[in-house]
């Protein structure tokens, strides 16, 4: 991928000029927040003051500071980072990322001011200076020669350091999410996203990211536990406010479903375009068995039983669809599942009693699904926990966390088993896998029906969460978004798919304008991703290889024996 038109020779020749340019850019970036960026305080937060940076302007300052550190560190820290440590960090690459991040950030803010106040005339000199500074920084860092890859990822650090880093990262994540959700100006939200993306990119390039992932691999339990702790703590930051919790539960439902789909698509490599139908099947079964006044069935078993029935019904549907189609290889499955999704919706609309049984009340669906009552715990009632009011949505939030934990355990354990190896083998070479005695059809069918089961379970919870279940909640577009979350986030990874799901679900919620154009924006996003990073935001090592078949350098990098030999040196 050659995005940078500057050749290495040019970089060698003009490295000092580049460094100076970038330095000027960084200093201006740090200075510009003290100048007014806008004429009116109606845009974003108040950016009209001289010498009074707003929180958003501070983010620009922070990116400038990061850039400055990356530029000066090799000189200032030369004494500390000598010898073997000299290659720990890739400061030039970090600087490039910081400059690019700053440019995106400033551009978002400037465009945001123009859009919110109606025209670029509303941008004052501070904003223009920031933009010029960011451009200078990008131009300057382009002229810097690239570093060799940072070696920090191979450095072993003591446990306390890793664990406290995990704690800090989790805490920052929690505060950031709470802050971002509280922000109702869409431009600030996007600018915040750009800022976070910029910082993460810098950390990755610098070598801190690889260090974090390699070190936390040794403390996986701590990482997972603290992630859940943070997720668990989130409702307590909301102070009883239900608005954000409602968004959060929707995000979790979406994430749980995406994780289930990830088993089908990411592990077994089966393209399922009708996955939402399994969620719908679970939801309808749960609604019918919920004791709702509009349900045609009087039976109302305990929720544990309902969940199992929902899952089993969904997986039976999976078996019916899968057993004829999974025998043939090729794109048949995609076509059949696409059709199945539509058929499901139409059947639900038509099961209204006019032709055949009345199960779903047609397109009206089943309203009035009562709130869950598990072991005397009423999900509809607010409860006070640790002095904080936990409302209805927060109750569901906790239950959904449990469902997600379940799906994650299923995903991770299957992945590290004989069955997971079989799936990889099938993705790699189906014929060879078959010739080695792998039960290709059985494994595919299991992934398909098992994924359907998990969707059914998630659907059962969703029915109670949504109160009403209608066929038009389960349209093809939802399947497409689920698939987009899996692909964007990173097929076959848990973290990636969670990230993809959160981003795809949160953005339209926070950004009204994205909601209108979301098909356009996501389409463009997918195209860009497929061009520049087909393995997704978070890449599993194997997927990375599958997408970059002929990248020998990557193969060497991923090969643990090669890396270990290098680390020993």
């Amino acid at each position: 991928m050659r995005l940078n038109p500057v050749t290495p020779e040019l970089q060698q020749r003009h490295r000092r000029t580049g460094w100076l340019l970038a330095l000027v850019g960084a200093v201006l970036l740090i200075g510009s927040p003290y100048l007014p960026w806008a004429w009116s305080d109606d845009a974003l937060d108040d950016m009209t003051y001289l010498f009074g940076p707003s929180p958003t302007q501070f983010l620009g300052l922070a990116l400038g500071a990061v850039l400055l550190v990356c530029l000066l560190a090799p000189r200032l820290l030369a004494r500390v980072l000598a010898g073997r440590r000299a290659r720990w960090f890739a400061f030039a690459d970090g600087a490039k990322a910081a400059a690019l991040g700053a440019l995106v950030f400033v551009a978002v803010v400037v465009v945001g001011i123009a859009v919110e106040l109606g025209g670029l005339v509303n941008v004052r000199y501070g904003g223009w200076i920031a933009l010029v500074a960011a451009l200078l920084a990008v131009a300057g860092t382009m002229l810097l020669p690239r570093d060799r890859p940072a070696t920090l990822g191979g450095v072993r650090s003591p446990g306390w350091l890793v664990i406290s880093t995990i704690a800090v990262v989790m805490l920052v994540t929690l505060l950031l999410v709470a802050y971002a959700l509280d922000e109702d100006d869409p431009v600030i939200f996007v600018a915040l996203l750009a800022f976070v993306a910029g910082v993460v990119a810098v950390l990755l390039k610098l070598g801190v990211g690889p260090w974090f992932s390699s070190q936390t691999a040794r403390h996986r339990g701590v990482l997972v536990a603290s992630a859940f702790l943070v997720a668990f703590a989130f409702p307590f930051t909301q102070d009883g406010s239900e608005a954000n919790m409602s968004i959060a539960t929707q995000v979790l439902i979406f994430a749980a479903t995406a994780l289930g789909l990830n088993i089908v698509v990411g592990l077994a490599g089966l393209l399922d375009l009708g996955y939402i139908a399994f969620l719908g099947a679970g939801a309808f079964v749960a609604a019918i068995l919920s004791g709702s006044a509009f349900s045609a069935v009087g039976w109302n078993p305990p929720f544990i039983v309902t969940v199992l029935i929902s899952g089993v019904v969904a997986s039976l549907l999976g078996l019916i669809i899968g057993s004829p189609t999974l025998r043939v290889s090729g794109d048949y499955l995609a076509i059949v599942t696409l059709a199945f999704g539509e058929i499901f919706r139409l059947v639900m609309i038509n099961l209204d009693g006019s032709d055949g049984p009345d199960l779903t009340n047609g397109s009206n669906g089943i309203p009035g699904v009562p709130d869950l009552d598990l072991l005397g715990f009423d999900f509809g009632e607010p409860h006070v926990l640790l002095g904080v009011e936990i409302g209805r949505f927060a109750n569901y939030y906790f239950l959904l966390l449990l469902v997600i934990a379940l799906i994650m355990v299923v995903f991770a354990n299957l992945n590290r088993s004989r069955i997971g190896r079989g799936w990889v083998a099938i993705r790699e070479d189906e014929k060879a896998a078959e010739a080695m005695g792998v039960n290709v059809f059985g494994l595919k069918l299991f992934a398909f029906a098992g994924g359907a089961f998990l969707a059914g379970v998630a659907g059962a919870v969703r029915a109670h969460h949504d109160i009403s279940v209608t066929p038009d909640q389960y349209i093809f577009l939802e399947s497409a978004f689920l698939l987009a979350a899996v692909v964007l986030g990173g097929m076959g990874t848990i973290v990636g798919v969670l990230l993809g799901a959160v981003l795809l679900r949160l953005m339209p919620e926070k950004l009204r304008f994205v909601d209108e154009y979301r098909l356009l924006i996501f389409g463009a996003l997918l195209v860009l991703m497929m061009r520049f990073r087909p393995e997704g935001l978070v890449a599993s090592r194997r997927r990375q290889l599958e997408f970059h078949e002929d990248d020998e350098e990557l193969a060497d990098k991923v090969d643990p024996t090669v890396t270990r030999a290098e680390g020993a040196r």
Partner: protein
Amino acid sequence: MSTEQHEVQFATAPEGAVLLEARGVTMRFGGLLAVNAVDMSVRSGEIVGLIGPNGAGKTTFFNCLTGLYRPTGGQVSFAGRPLPPRPRKVVQAGMARTFQNIRLFQNMTALENVMVGRYCRTSAGPLTSIVRGPKFRREEAATRARAQELLGFVGIPEAGESLARNLSYGDQRRLEIARALATDPQLLLLDEPTAGMNPQETRQAEELIFRIRDSGLAVVVIEHDMRFIFNLCDRVLCLVQGEVLVQGTPEQVQSDPRVIEAYIGTSDEGETGDA
């Protein structure tokens, strides 16, 4: 453990018992008769060579035996029982193969490749795998140990953590043999195991095949390297245009004028014969 001599136990059939019995195996692709009524029987502890000019149908015959193709005629039985043309059933019955064009799982490590070979001899189901109880852990550990043992047996004990695609060509061929051995076969089908190897690697492959035979397995090997075949095999079949031309001891086949003619004069012979 740096020497190549790793002793490994294999489950084997009694010496001399008939393992594979192919009767009149025929494979027709449209108008092309790729394999025509081929008979072959293999006893345990035997190395059988399969030779023949390019396009003679050797690989196709292997594919018929292992269920990758469904033969259009004939019967295959293994250890006295008829063998359905389904790859999984074939492996389960005790016949494993390698491929002429290496077909490893390139982006898996060498060890994982061999562990995939253990798939049909292990039983952990979905629930066991999700719960990861002691039985699952024991089976997983045994699988790993056996795979490592086999890597040692074929002479690449250090390659376990390397990606298959990063191995040298010769090591990839060995890995394919290890993967096939992992299925606990009684009969191993090798399709041109020395293709593309240098003389030294060829010698090592020869020695490996002898060791496989000495541990009680039967081997059928396709090769173009005649010196290799005549060194190695107890019996040789020469296939020409899908039919068995000659079979016998290496000496008999080597001196048979028809074999020499088939190799040297195929093209014009074939065309006049067909017309």
